């Protein structure tokens, strides 16, 4: 089952990245590429934002959640592509909304690929900006199915949790 979920998650994420955000995602099996850190924005606490973290949960036949972590610079590029704007025109609320919508689309497409008959509902997705240290901490705590992508030369982590797979 986990291989089926992995394949479906890769297919769903790749489709969403390419079709709606105009970037290309390849599953990364070995060492991840270095993240481009030129795009940083100070958090209110003073530490630099380097990652965008998002989560959406699902309830019903397959309860669980997915979490997506992507570099701030890539998220900004994707948000600009999605909205047809220049990167400098994308506000922080818009960036977070786009990250939420990205998770929403991956989750919906994942279910479509796994089981068209599954009855499920999605919770409201959430997204936040996090620092390098926080990203490392959350990554080390992840226990679900971990999928790493190379998206236009940058590392993106997708974690899929199905606590009670069939």
């Amino acid at each position, binding site marked *: 089952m986990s291989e089926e979920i992995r394949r479906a998650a890769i297919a769903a994420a790749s489709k969403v990245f390419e079709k709606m955000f105009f970037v290309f995602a390849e599953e990364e099996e070995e060492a991840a590429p270095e993240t481009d850190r030129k795009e940083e924005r100070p958090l209110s606490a003073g530490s630099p934002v380097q990652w965008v973290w998002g989560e959406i949960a699902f309830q019903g036949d397959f309860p669980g959640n997915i979490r997506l972590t992507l570099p701030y610079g890539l998220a900004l590029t994707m948000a600009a592509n999605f*909205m047809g704007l220049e990167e400098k025109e994308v506000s922080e609320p818009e960036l977070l909304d786009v990250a939420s919508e990205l998770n929403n689309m991956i989750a919906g497409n994942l279910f*479509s690929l796994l089981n068209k008959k599954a009855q499920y*509902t999605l919770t409201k997705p959430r997204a936040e900006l996090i620092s390098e240290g926080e990203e490392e901490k959350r990554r080390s705590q992840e226990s679900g199915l971990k999928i790493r992508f190379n998206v236009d030369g940058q590392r993106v982590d997708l974690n899929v949790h199905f606590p009670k797979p069939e």
Partner: protein
Amino acid sequence: MAYNTLIVDDSPTMRKVIRKSLAISGFEVGECWEAGDGRQALTLLQSHSVDLILVDFNMPEMNGLEMIRELKKDEKRRRIPVVMITTHSNDWVVQEGTALGIQGFIQKPFHPETIRDVLTALMEKADV
């Protein structure tokens, strides 16, 4: 002919993207309004002349199916054509939506051309 259109989605950026996609696609839109959930949309429908509704499924307060169920109770507005644009394309959503009278389903992610093709075919049939 230009169609007055109501876009219902809880994501403000998705509403903007749908608006842009409509413009890019060549589908003729007259007035265009936005609502963040089903309840807001039903309120807006009371005071605006809408020819077409594009609605998401997954929204807080009142989801897309619940909103259309309420709309169908309104004798004046129950015939407004509705298309659901959603990440949910599983059988139960489509079956329940079709039973409620939703005439088209577009799965996110979408191309602007898909929106144009679905809406053009629908509005030709609807003859608003």
